[in-house]
């Protein structure tokens, strides 16, 4: 069960419960995400982080019902405004899209239609949900462009996407997304395709506008730095599951899952202590080829024998090695990281080396003899 704090209870905007999605692979299907449960309250900012392939984008696409032909929701529910979006007929789902939940995508080069003017693309979003005359829609679009910092409103509406730079195109996407004042904005890697200097600008703009609109934000990214500045809560995903979920300060200050610890240590500037960059050895398992038990086990230095056989559940942990965790801090781990281990990034307790079962490679670089 999920430990729910008093803040989260009550007016929940979006509740994803036990979501599992599979994709076709040849003749069979492969589970890409499993047991994903998240809550987003009104005006809340949630970040979802993980490496490529961990399923974070699939999660956000599933919410919008945009999985495409190969994707199928195996089970779970996505409750928004009292209704399960996954059970809604297409017509009603369309009314939710754009108006109540909006989404912006990673590559502004390809998320804007090259043969339509940006004005047409903003106004069509407006007119899809409201009866607005072209004149009024254009005026609103010009207003929105101004809001995102694109000058010369009306004239700009007649220009084509390829006439703008990447950063400006993403601003157009933000303007389009916020046109109808949605209650939730999902941003899937919004700045990954942009130059570093532009990234900060666009993020700042997005954050400010979302706050002004009172909307909630679900920010999907692989960049922990982005998450640190923009979100209140973070969920870390690995191999299709959520492995840790906590408030942002808790996650960064007191990471509990070995993967999270490894992530923090492999990124410059986001470390908790002054230490060398330590990459996590090994690779993410392919979907469909995860080991039984915990998917992170081959790369984990905290592993116990049961890690090979038992899938850890995501649950609220009250204390680890005598240290109190904040309420609402959930971890999926049989042997979470103790506070004094988070800094250095490796176990301090004496942990015997647990060899992998046959057929599975160990990546931690340890051996039976060295300990």
């Amino acid at each position, binding site marked *: 069960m999920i430990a729910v704090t008093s803040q989260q209870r009550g007016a929940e905007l979006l509740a994803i419960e036990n979501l599992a999605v599979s994709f076709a692979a040849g003749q069979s299907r492969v589970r890409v995400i499993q047991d994903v449960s998240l809550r987003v309250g009104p005006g809340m900012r949630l970040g979802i982080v993980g490496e490529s392939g961990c399923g974070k984008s699939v999660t956000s696409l599933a919410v919008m019902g945009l999985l495409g032909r*190969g994707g199928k929701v195996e089970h779970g529910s996505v409750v928004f405004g009292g209704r399960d979006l996954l059970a809604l007929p297409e017509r009603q789902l369309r009314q939710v899209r754009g108006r109540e939940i909006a989404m912006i995508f*990673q590559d502004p080069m390809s998320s804007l239609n090259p043969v339509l003017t940006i004005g047409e693309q903003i106004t069509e979003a407006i007119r899809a949900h409201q009866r607005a005359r072209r004149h009024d829609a254009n005026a609103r679009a010009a207003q929105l462009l101004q809001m995102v910092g694109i000058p010369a409103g009306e004239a700009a509406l007649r220009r084509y996407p390829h006439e703008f730079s990447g950063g400006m195109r993403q601003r157009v996407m933000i303007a389009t997304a916020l046109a109808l004042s949605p209650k939730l904005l999902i941003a899937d890697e919004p700045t990954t395709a942009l130059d570093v200097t532009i990234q900060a600008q666009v993020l700042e703009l997005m954050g400010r506008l979302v706050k002004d609109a009172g909307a909630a934000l679900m920010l999907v990214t692989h960049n922990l730095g982005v998450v640190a500045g923009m979100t209140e809560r973070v969920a870390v995903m690995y191999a299709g599951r959520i492995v840790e979920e906590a408030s942002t300060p808790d996650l960064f200050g007191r990471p509990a899952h070995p993967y999270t610890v490894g992530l923090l240590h492999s990124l410059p500037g986001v470390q908790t202590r002054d230490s060398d960059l330590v990459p996590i050895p090994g690779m993410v398992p392919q979907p469909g080829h995860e080991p039984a038990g915990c998917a992170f086990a081959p790369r984990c230095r905290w592993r116990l024998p049961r890690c090979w056989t038992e899938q850890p559940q995501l649950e609220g942990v009250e204390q680890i090695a005598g240290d109190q965790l904040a309420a609402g801090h959930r971890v999926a781990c049989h042997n979470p990281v103790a506070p004094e281990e988070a800094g250095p990034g490796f176990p301090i307790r004496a942990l015997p080396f647990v060899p992998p079962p046959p057929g599975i490679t160990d990546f931690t670089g340890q051996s039976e003899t060295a300990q």
Partner: protein
Amino acid sequence: MAAVTVAPGGSVRRRVSVVREFAGISVRNRLAVLIAGLSVLVTLTDAVAGGRFPFLPSPLAQNLVATLAPPSLSHPMGTDEYGRDILSRVLAGTMISVEVTLVVVILGATLGMLIGVVAGFFGGTTDEVLMRVTDMFLAFPFLILAAAIATAIGRNLTATIIALTVVEWPWYARLARGQVLSLREHEFVLAARSLGASRRRLMFRGILPNVMPVLITQATLDIGYVMLSMAGLSFLGIGAQPPAPEWGSMILDALTYQPQAWWYALFPGLALTITAFGFNLLGDGLRDWFDPTLAGLRGDTGPAGP
């Protein structure tokens, strides 16, 4: 047709049809099977053409007693105006069509590839000149130019081959050049050059192997079209001359006896359609193999990204 059988012990096995199984074999094996099949076919038709095939009369053997006979047991496809067995002629015609088509496509593609690669690789004036020449030839509709050339050179199979080759190569030149141009900027070329690779080495090791797949795919797709064009030229009277049992000229001869001797035009055309279809399928399969995005939204691929 898939039949489901239940083996003892309760496990269910499915017997898939031959086609499904064939489709499941890797492309390399499929190619081998096809080549083997084609070789068998070629040997057979060669035998038929030479009158050496045991059950069928020679395609040239006339029988003025049984002219324009409808399909029967002794002549499954009927006879033509000289009493010749149409089945033998249709089978023998396979040789001509396939042979000529393959020669044209291979010649045209090779010639085009060389010109295109040279143009793309060396650039500058060479490129300009070669491309202008290519464009000039591309300015003519296929058949018209082929007909004009064949008329100028003469009415025989060799002339047809030359004519068709002249019309074919510009497409490959353009294709090859386009490939070379895009490859030139690719990182691996720049990397090789920075390591000091000579131009010749670059051309043969780097560029050609990457140009080939596209050209081969295009060539395979083209075979059907060239075959039909060749038959078209024969239908116009250029190309294979009587008494050669070429499908196109057979249809031309059949025209006089329409609609009474309906079998005369039917079977050669059917043979053309089936053969062209087969090669087109092969070409499609090859293209899909190289570029899986074209395999269609059959649920094989999910959205890009995590």
